[in-house]
């Protein structure tokens, strides 16, 4: 088990380095990426199986004694995040291979490095190591975002790098303040100190601001919709599955171990969650392209994911984790559909599109299924997640937060209808954008088939939700009572 926890990030790190050496051999790079990601998925599923009894285990890197070693800690939440993240990364890479977006010799190595950082963030139990994980992830994402090197990418890159670098610097200052106050950066050590030491709590607050910026919580969200749309389409889908979700994971972990007893945290978290939901969905309704609407939606959905942090009942956390897992798949499928439209039709701007339901029926279905899941229409997985979350909010007495979640769902449906009207119904406008040479039949089928498969999976997950709900419930148990995790990672 402990070697698996290291393998999920060390394997891809080695594969990334090897991929750089293989920069002239794209077929070898692809085989390497697919092989390593498939192995990571298998390892993650094994970790889920090993921790599904609500246990947690730790690894001391390098075999140093406790206190010197960097400690990794794995419980079922880490394992579930590893699983869904690696599956969506594999789908994104497969799409990029089909659409030809992996033509750049550094594409495959960069995705491997990106995953290295994300996987390390999911398993680390050490604040400074978390900083390093975020940096590995972000540096890979800086290069992936600007890989096309055009005007738009330079501008988006400057905004993206500037915002995230500032957040990282603030994160580092937070870590420094916490170390100064407590003399440790281990999650368990800091958790014990924060309960008594106001100075440590101040440092933790600085750190939280940085994590909130990385998770794109309002009012620190402005960078995301401005930058993600300028990455190449498959890269946007991979970013959406990994980057902000790593921030959300850290928020769950820090709330569980350190923040839950802090006065006023619950009120602030609920208020911020509600504002994030509303601001995100309003921005999405105002969008004019498939990807610009979908990326603004990511802000809104982060609000749903943050809401359980304020409620912090077992039901709310289980709903939040279920919602997170299915949402990563749903948003990935939607962005892959947008990427397929962009590749096949030459644009994803709604003004350039129309009538796709007639010309590309299955692509329309591939969009429709996850779009219904995002809005929360039964029998999709999104309905189950939203229903449980809203019920948990009402049970916890947060009536206005629950009501906000329902109202935002309606606006979400509106924005999905806007895309469907603009792109899939109606007539194709006369001034159609120039299309690139049509890809082969096989490539087209892969590009349509990948999001369609995820769309079907959301229906399956909606009707047969009980299996994943059990796992989410176990994760909620582990988060409500983090004793097992803290004991495993403490000195």
């Amino acid at each position: 088990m402990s070697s698996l926890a290291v393998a999920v990030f060390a394997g891809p790190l080695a594969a990334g380095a090897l991929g750089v050496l293989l920069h002239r051999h794209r077929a070898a790079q692809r085989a390497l990426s697919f092989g390593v990601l498939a192995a990571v998925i298998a390892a993650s599923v094994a970790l889920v199986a090993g921790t599904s009894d609500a246990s947690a285990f730790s690894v001391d890197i390098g075999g140093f004694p406790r206190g010197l070693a960097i400690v990794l800690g794995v419980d079922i939440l880490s394992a579930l995040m590893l699983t869904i993240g690696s599956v969506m990364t594999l789908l994104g890479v497969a799409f990029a291979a089909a659409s030809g977006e992996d033509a750049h010799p550094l594409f495959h190595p960069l995705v491997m490095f990106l995953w290295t950082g994300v996987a390390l963030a999911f398993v680390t139990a050490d604040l400074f190591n978390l900083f390093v994980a975020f940096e590995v992830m972000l540096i890979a994402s800086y290069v992936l975002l600007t890989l096309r090197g055009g005007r738009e990418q330079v501008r988006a890159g400057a905004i993206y790098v500037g915002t995230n670098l500032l957040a990282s610097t603030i994160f580092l200052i937070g870590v420094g303040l916490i170390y100064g106050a407590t003399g440790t950066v281990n999650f368990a050590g800091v958790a014990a100190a924060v309960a008594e030491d106001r100075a440590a709590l101040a440092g933790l607050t600085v750190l939280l601001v940085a994590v909130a910026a990385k998770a794109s919580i309002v009012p620190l969200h402005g960078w995301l919709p401005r930058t993600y749309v300028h990455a190449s389409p498959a890269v946007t889908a991979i970013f959406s599955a990994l980057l902000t979700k790593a921030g959300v994971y850290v928020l769950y972990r820090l709330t569980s171990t350190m923040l839950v007893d802090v006065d006023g945290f619950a009120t602030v978290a609920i208020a911020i969650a509600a504002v994030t939901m509303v601001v995100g969905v309003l921005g999405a309704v105002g969008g004019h392209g498939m990807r610009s609407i979908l990326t603004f939606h990511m802000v809104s959905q982060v609000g749903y994911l943050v809401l359980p942090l304020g409620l912090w009942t077992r039901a709310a956390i289980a709903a939040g984790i279920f919602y997170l897992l299915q949402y990563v798949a749903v948003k990935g499928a939607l962005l892959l559909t947008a990427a397929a439209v962009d590749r096949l039709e030459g644009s994803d701007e709604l003004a350039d599109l129309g009538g796709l339901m007639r010309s590309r029926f299955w692509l329309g279905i591939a969009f429709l299924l996850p779009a219904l899941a995002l809005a929360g229409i039964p029998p999709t997985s999104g309905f189950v997640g939203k229903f449980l979350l809203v019920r948990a909010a009402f049970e916890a007495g947060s009536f206005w937060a629950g009501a906000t979640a329902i109202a935002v769902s309606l606006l979400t449906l509106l924005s999905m209808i806007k895309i469907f009207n603009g792109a899939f119904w109606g007539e194709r406008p006369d001034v159609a954008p120039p299309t690139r040479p049509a890809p082969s039949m096989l490539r087209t089928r892969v590009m349509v088939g990948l999001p369609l498969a995820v769309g079907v999976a959301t229906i399956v997950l909606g009707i047969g939700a009980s299996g994943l709900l059990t796992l989410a419930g176990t994760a909620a148990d582990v988060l409500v009572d983090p004793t097992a995790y803290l004991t495993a990672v403490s000195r």
Partner: protein
Amino acid sequence: MSSAVMVGLLAAGGTYLVLQRGIVRTALGFVLLGHAATTLLIAAGGVGTRGVPFAGGGADAADPLPQAFALTAIVISFGITAFLLALAFRSRDVNGSDDLEDDR
């Protein structure tokens, strides 16, 4: 006290430069902010003891952990500075200058 003043000055200068329009100035601003953060990390370990942090280094051995933190942070910020400067070069190629365009 002197380290607190230094962190303050570095952070002030860095903040001013990060708010500028050109990518090169922003990069320089992040260099200063990075120095502020590393100085703070070193100060967090205590600046009173400065001995060699080896086993058996005596009572005045410095805390080795913040030094490791600072070293890691310096390496990372060096890499990102190089990337930002490359981005500024690219911006000059496609835009003619390293100034960011207006938001639309």
